[in-house]
């Protein structure tokens, strides 16, 4: 793994999300708690809704277009046969780090 420093955790609103553009497409960083962040594809497999714009609750997000709900631990849609890709992410000293390998970057900048 090669961890890339993305931003301070405070840059993401609690129970909110922000988008990171990557070679594998837009990834949303969901801040589900004070010091808890998940990374997953920003695009809903249903109609492409921007998941970072959805309401974040528990460890889930609801797509703003048609209310599909995704579990951010697994990426699985509740009650639907669909899932979104999830990516390794961690918090270190108040910074959010994303795994560069997983998002299509060969090496950390």
């Amino acid at each position, binding site marked *: 793994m090669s961890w890339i420093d993305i931003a301070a955790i405070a840059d993401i609103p609690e129970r909110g999300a922000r988008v990171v553009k990557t070679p594998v497409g837009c990834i949303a960083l969901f801040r589900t708690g004070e010091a808890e962040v998940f990374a997953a594809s920003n695009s809903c497999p249903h109609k492409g809704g921007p998941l970072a*714009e959805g309401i974040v609750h528990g460890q889930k997000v609801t797509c703003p277009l048609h209310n599909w709900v995704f579990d951010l631990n697994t990426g699985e849609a509740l009650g639907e046969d669909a899932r979104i890709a999830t990516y390794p992410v961690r918090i270190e000293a108040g910074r959010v780090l994303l795994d560069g390998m997983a998002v299509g970057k060969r090496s950390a900048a």
Partner: protein
Amino acid sequence: MKDMKQKLVIIGAGMASGRVIEHLAETAPDAYEITLFNAEPRGNYNRIMLSPVLSGEKTYEEIVTHDAAFYEAAGVTCRFGEKVSGIDRDAKVVHGENGPVSYDKLVIGTGSVPFMIPLPGHDLDGVIAYRDLEDTHRMMGMGAGKRVVVIGGGLLGLEAAAGMAARGAEVTVVHIMGHLMERQLDEAAGYLLKKSLEEKGITVRLQANSKQILGKDGRVTALELDDGTALPCDLLVMAVGIRPNVALAKDAGLAVGRGIHVDDQMITSDEDVLAVGECVEHQGAVFGLVAPLYDQAKVAAQTLMGQEAAFVQKSLSTKLKVTGCDLFSAGDFSEGEGREDIVFRDPSRGVYKRLVIEGDRLVGAVMYGDTADGSWFFGLIKDGTPVADMRETLIFGPAYQGGAQADPLSAVAALPPEAEICGCNGICKGTIVDAIAGGAGDLGAVRAKTKASASCGTCTGLVEQLLQVTLGDAFQMPAAQPVCGCTDLSHEDVRRLIKSQELKSQPAVWQELGWKTPNGCHVCRPAVNFYLLADWPLEYRDDPQSRFVNERKHANIQKDGTFSVVPRMWGGITNPAELRAIADAAEKYDVPTVKVTGGQRIDLLGVRGEDLPHIWADLNRAGLVSGHAYSKGLRTVKTCVGSDHCRFGTQDSTGLGIKLEKALWGSWTPHKVKLGVSGCPRNCAEATCKDVGIVCVDSGYQVGVGGAAGMDVRETERLVDVASEEEAIAVTVAFVQLYRENAKYLDRPYKWLGKVGLDWVRERVMDPVERQRLVDAFELSQSIYRKDPWAEHAAKPRAYAPLADLTLEAAE
């Protein structure tokens, strides 16, 4: 000449004695100077409601029936927290701990005492009964990680168990009999009840004999059964029964059997001493349910006023409420010779019904899981109606009699006027229907007028059905749907509890109202967020993370993830500078579609999310602000040109529209709000299908409300006609604020009006004091929210840009 007031002393502030004082205060306020003793350090409260207090559905304040103001107004001297040591009947003096009081008439309402089984260890700390607020508080302390044993599988014991289990305690119910609530239920219903309690995590031990209570250092540690099992516990609740509290009366030498003997006038063996409530014995019977106690209280009050009255015992049905279980039992359902049963079971729905028939009469009924027809069966039992003709379909209830359609309302429609609806207060159907016909258009009004459903509330559903049967479509049945899966509470409950418990943050709501999820979901969060900001405008601030994307980003998301931007055009008026700025912005940001909206403004569709703060900044520079075309808030005020240009115009409709829009813009509401102002009855602004529509006429302004032109199409109903523009604005603002304070989230005004009734709204808006309060409350809230969110967000464009762009950094 007026006589001196006589002295009345009342011992015990319970539900019966409270009702005596109420009757006296209402009908003969000058007859007596009243002194009220109560051993508990408080006045009258609704003891039936201790269970909701325990389960957290209500607070103590909500179950107080009489407060200090009431006693003061009724001229009652309160001696609360003071025990009575004795009654001297010869001297006609009651001795309290803090001194004697003489009386002309004495009412004893000492109630009952819980029966404590004299098991070894029953005096350990942590062994309590379930009788008063102190006991309730002890039980409320039992949450997760605490273990509780309840002895007694009757109504009281099960309420205690359910309440503590709901708080997370590990609860075991120990019952000596073979099934629960054996006095009210037969075995099958008892089994269903047991199953449903077990599903709530409560352990039920039947045919269990308690042997002794074990303790350590004076505190309870476990209950030991006679088979040797020890049930460890932090609290042991004994709920095995009550007995009349007769000690004082006995010491005073009054005639006492199981209870204090009283005659039909509620007079004891001493003609100046009366007794009411659970402490009395009347014709061999003692009383535990509230309905006969209230009857006794009425008779006692009439006796005290020198009126003729007699207490008559009635047969009783009990509609039982164990949190989350639906039970009904009435009459006699024991098996016996000449008795036949009709039984209906639906295991998949958990429904059980049993009717007991003797000859051609119904004598008993037990129901579990579906008790909708209970009152109808009870009527048949009470009236001794011959049922031979309908025997085959009897168990299916009134809906199936006489070939009528199975309509859920037909049961209550079929009830005779004398059928009792509210058991607590003895209110029959006829009284309620009369009240409705007399103008009581909602549940609250019926309660205020008749007291029906005002005590325990279990008949609320029936009263609502009567409203619907009587008023037809004018009454919309409130569906007690929970907000979402995070809670069992309805929107109405949540709103009420936010106000009454003064909950001022979302975590407070989740915690205090027992949310089942850590922080809600996309359904409840926006609703709770709105309720909080509507009720506590200064203490609570709107939480963008609990807003749907449109309201968080202040633009409407489109199906391709782009947004639409709609600047406000006050009253539909614009000018060349604004139009130029809009045209420039459309070009600069490659806006693919420019459209005129139905609300008289211009929509720029297809703006990229990252461009939003920049296009807003550009529009702001031309003086344009957010049109809130995305919000559950004020959208537009559509106007016609009015008297300025139109040859038919009667008033300045455009001017009024602009004033209204300037007053209301920025406010959040339960759903979107659209206004229209037409300058004459030709109604070019289509005002009569708006949430608030004003039609100008020669004499002034006709203010209509509750219009709609969406999924439903509705014409406004006239709220009021006013003469001046100022008044039209005040009425509109007051209406919007009333809607903000009371409506369910996502109910448009017409839906809300369907629930509360136009009359209720008119009464409030037209009351000068209330109207001013509403206007002030709205202004207070607007001091926070009447501002342009675009300007605010344009200042921090980074929030709209990606957090990082990893595609830019050169891959090799």
